[in-house]
């Protein structure tokens, strides 16, 4: 069966995110005050798997071995 995995990679809590800081300052230039800005990378991966659970297992393996660096990242997987 074909599954679409929506994988989101984001920095762990407490990690300095200079990109988010720059974006937050740019939002301030638009005249808005924000409490917080976070950024993340999203990947949509289509693959074949026996079932939803297997698809998620593959997604987890891809995250741990490539898409995320466990020193600084966390990941979320949504299987469609």
């Amino acid at each position, binding site marked *: 069966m074909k599954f679409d995995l929506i994988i989101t990679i984001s920095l762990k809590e407490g*990690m*300095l995110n*200079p*990109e988010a800081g*720059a974006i937050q300052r740019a939002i301030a230039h638009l005249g808005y005050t924000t409490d917080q800005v976070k950024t993340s990378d999203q990947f949509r991966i289509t693959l074949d798997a026996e079932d939803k659970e297997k698809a998620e297992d593959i997604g987890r393996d891809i995250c741990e*071995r*490539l*898409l995320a*660096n466990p*020193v*600084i990242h966390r990941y979320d997987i949504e299987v469609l």
Partner: protein
Amino acid sequence: MRAAVIQFGGSNCDRDVAYVVSEVCGADCDLIWYKDGITREYDAIILPGGFSYGDYLRAGAIAARTPIMADVIRAAEKGTLVLGICNGAQIAAESGLVPGVFTINAYPKFICEPACLRVENTTSPFTRLYNEGEVISIPIAHKEGRYIIPDPDLQRLEAEKRVAFRFCDRNGNVSDAANPNGSTGNITGLLSEKENVLVMMPHPERASEEILGSTDGKKIFDSMIAYTEES
């Protein structure tokens, strides 16, 4: 010493470092395209600077998963010297050859300037020709050079004296003001457990000839050659 410089798609300091190793320091040096693999024994393997795979995903992340890196890891396990410079340092960290990760600078712009470094380790095959506490000048050129290492690993790194170089000022003071990219503990050069892998963000190949303004980086290559000749 016979060294190999690995060329990935997007490496751009490969010929510079090969020139310094062979023409300036007088060692043998092969350039190896990553798809060709490592097919013979080398005394040293150098992962050069550049922008492998356009820094897609994270700097060094894609190159770290190429099959030739399995060859490099196997060689490192057998004691071959491995030197990762700039993008090569990022690749080595992504490969697990050293702990931690190099990520985007605290102030997120590309920095290209001379940097003062304090030599912290003088026992490794890469640093034996320096004096402890010596202040050297080697250029940096990176946007993703902020070294991050979580606490238990950091304590171990420090306890085992595996920090090779720290950013400092001209007088050797290690401070936030002398830390151009926000690296943990001003660390910008570190060694593996067995001290046969050195990764560093500064470019020693750009500080190996008088005409370039500094020869402080040449001692790294000379140290490697001296170590190889002794062993």
